């Protein structure tokens, strides 16, 4: 929470925040997050309402957050990326396999990220250049990435490299809490994504392309480059998330992160980003992931409510937000004419 208010004051100038006025869904998400948290704290204090629970959200959902951040770029530009879950698995698999073969950890990680970037580039290129629907192109990418995992190994491969242990050694911080290096990495990635979207020309182009690709082209913006880059960003983010997943599970497997693309899309939508593109924020995605994570944690604490309620809850939230967006979209259009 402290991280959020900090970003809110420093990072988001009134200009960029007010300028898009699409923040009602974000506020709804924030409200829900606070509500779920308060309910959890009342029901399960002292276990729930502590700072450590917040930190744990980042530890347990870091890879989802990174994936969803990449997905935010793609969805903002008007596309969709179904390959992210598979790329996460491929990232973890490459780390496990390459370190297992004796490669140094850094080289394995760089290779994994490069693979994600390459796959993202190919998908973006095919989508832009050959006008293939994003959903189909990334579906093929999903098959390919998962298939490659199984080409590497049918079995789960353990990660034994000490580096992967080191990055999740708890570090004590004031307030009787601990964090892990991975948490810092995740926050840095969110910050970079925030900067890219709101303070760089690329970011503005992403919004423009999502708002109207044809207009963007006529205004002289590099449509193709922007589109392809969003898929590269998503590929890189998914690969990094894959490394984090490898760290978290200390293994690589073709069956890792099955269906994570759905969670990522859900988090982005719940975070207030319009699935048709053009409206949304990275910080909304952060809230979306936090909300999903909090619900999961809450259900864990509850005990008798089993894990599948998470999926149902995500589905319900997805429904509510899609209908909310639809209603807002209709209003926006009627206001325009």
């Amino acid at each position, binding site marked *: 929470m402290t991280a959020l208010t900090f970003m809110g004051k420093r990072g988001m100038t009134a200009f960029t925040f*007010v*300028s898009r006025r699409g923040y009602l869904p974000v506020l709804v998400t924030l409200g829900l997050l606070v509500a779920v948290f308060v309910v959890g704290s009342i029901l399960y204090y002292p276990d729930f309402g502590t700072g450590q629970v917040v930190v744990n959200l980042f530890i347990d959902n870091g890879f989802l957050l990174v994936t969803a951040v990449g997905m935010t770029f793609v969805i903002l530009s008007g596309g969709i990326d179904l390959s992210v879950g598979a790329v996460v698995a491929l990232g973890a698999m490459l780390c496990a396999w390459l370190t297992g073969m004796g490669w140094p950890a850094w080289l394995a990680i760089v290779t994994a990220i490069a693979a994600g970037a390459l796959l993202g580039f190919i998908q973006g290129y095919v989508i832009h250049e050959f006008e293939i629907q994003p959903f189909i192109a990334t579906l093929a990418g999903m098959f390919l990435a998962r298939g490659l995992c199984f080409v590497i190994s049918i079995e789960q491969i353990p990660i034994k490299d000490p580096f992967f242990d080191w990055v999740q050694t708890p570090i004590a911080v004031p307030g009787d809490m601990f964090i892990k290096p991975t948490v810092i990495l995740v926050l840095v990635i969110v910050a970079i994504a925030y900067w890219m979207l709101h303070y760089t020309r690329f970011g503005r182009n992403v919004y423009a392309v999502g*708002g*109207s690709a044809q*207009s963007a082209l006529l205004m002289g913006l590099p449509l193709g480059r922007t589109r392809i880059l969003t898929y590269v960003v998503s590929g890189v983010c998914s690969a990094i998330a894959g490394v984090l997943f490898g760290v978290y599970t200390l293994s690589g497997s073709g069956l890792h992160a099955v269906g994570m693309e759905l969670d990522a899309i859900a988090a982005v939508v719940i975070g207030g980003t319009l699935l048709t593109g053009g409206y949304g924020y990275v910080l909304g995605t952060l809230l979306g992931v936090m909300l999903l994570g909090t619900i999961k944690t809450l259900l864990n604490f509850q005990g008798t409510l089993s894990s599948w309620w998470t999926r149902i809850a995500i589905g319900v939230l997805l429904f509510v937000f899609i209908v909310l967006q639809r209603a807002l979209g209709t209003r926006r259009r009627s206001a*325009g*004419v």
Partner: protein
Amino acid sequence: MTPPILEMRGISKAFPGVRALDDVSFRLLPGEVHALMGENGAGKSTLIKVLTGVYTADAGDVLLAGNPVVIGGPHQAQEAGISTVYQEVNLCPNLSVAENIFIGRGKVRWKQARARAAELLTRFDLDIDPALPLGAYSIAIQQLVAIVRAVDISAKVLVLDEPTSSLDRDEVARLFAVMRRLREDGVAILFVSHFLEQVFDISDRVTVLRNGRLVGEYETGALTRATLIGHMTGRVLEALEELHAPGEHAPDSAQPVLRAEGIGRKGGIAPFDLTIHSGEVVGFAGLLGSGRTEAARLLFGADGSDSGQLSIDGKPVTLKSPGAAIEHGVAFCPENRKTEGLVEDLTVGENIMLALQAARGWVRQVTDSDDLVRRWITALRITPSDPDAIAGNLSGGNQQKVLLARWLITQPKLLILDEPTRGIDVGAKAEIQKLVVSLADEGKAVLFISAELEEVLRISHKVEVLRDRQMIAELANEGLTPERILATIAGGGTGTVAAEGAAQ
């Protein structure tokens, strides 16, 4: 006279089967509003697309401030100082007003951009917040923002392609205020509009095209509405054609098939009255953009009307959807065959059966469909006569016949035909005209819309005249000439009184 900022010399452009522009020249002076006028197929759009680099001309030169330039695309045109604002605003509704003004223009200091945008907007008397998303504002404002962007890119030439089509009166006034200010600043404005009043209101000079050729360049002040329409339609210059006798069949004075009282739609067409009897052909005449199609769509329920009352066979009805109109025996061939009429993937036979089948519902498949389809293919001489041919592959004329057949097998009481002969060859055109006449003889009521006045006169019993989204007169087709109709359009006021006087 000041040298022109833009000159187009001897521009020709041909497309397969049609000469869109034939040796057209055009010049634009700094600090003037120059209207480009012409009816359908005159070549306005092609000329603008050559100017903005969407098309490359086959022959001719474009000179900017006296220097020949080659324009490779919209972006290059913009860099050369030619900016275009289209009817459908080409900006991003999700970005802020300031972002829309400055994006894509090299390095921008966004902190200062907002102040700069505010400054620009104030210059145009636009009291809007540059930080708000563009989509929060009306189309009119969005268009003005597009103009602000265009002008700020240091446009010497500003092309406004039908900017007023969807604006109301106040918004047009606001746009014109901005245009006048730009004119004072020395910007050359090329203005395309179908509203005659607006052209007389704002433009300094007018260039008229017809059938891809230059008719002439005129000072607006020296033109009357009648002479302008004369130039656009070629009526004054060409010899009068032999008048065709209107149908001898006078409509029976009994119950009208359709009666509209005060039917209208905001932003579409002003409320109008209309009666159509069985056996009667009613023509809609008016220039491009006069509201012909809008009026027809209300009668079919394709758009909802927000005023007035419609009755069919004397009974009041509310047409909430085309389906409801079809149930009452109304049929409508839209002017846009490809996007609103044909399902191009389907076969000729399937396209023909569609309306009847839709009315019957999906359970009861029309059993004698093969016979019906064959009969109509033969009757309308559709080629190829193969019912299994893919509809999208047919020529325009045959596609039109397919759509006619689609409606004729539903045995409608009233058939609305919107530009049924547009873009089809002469032979097919004559066939369709004959068909309309014979349908009326059989007792069907027909509403016939066409940009070609001769055609309207040849087959209609009475003609409704439209101008600037209003129905301004109803003329009986007795000794009526195209000139008389054009005179009515050119005539001042909106009163039917004047028009009725003209009809005497």
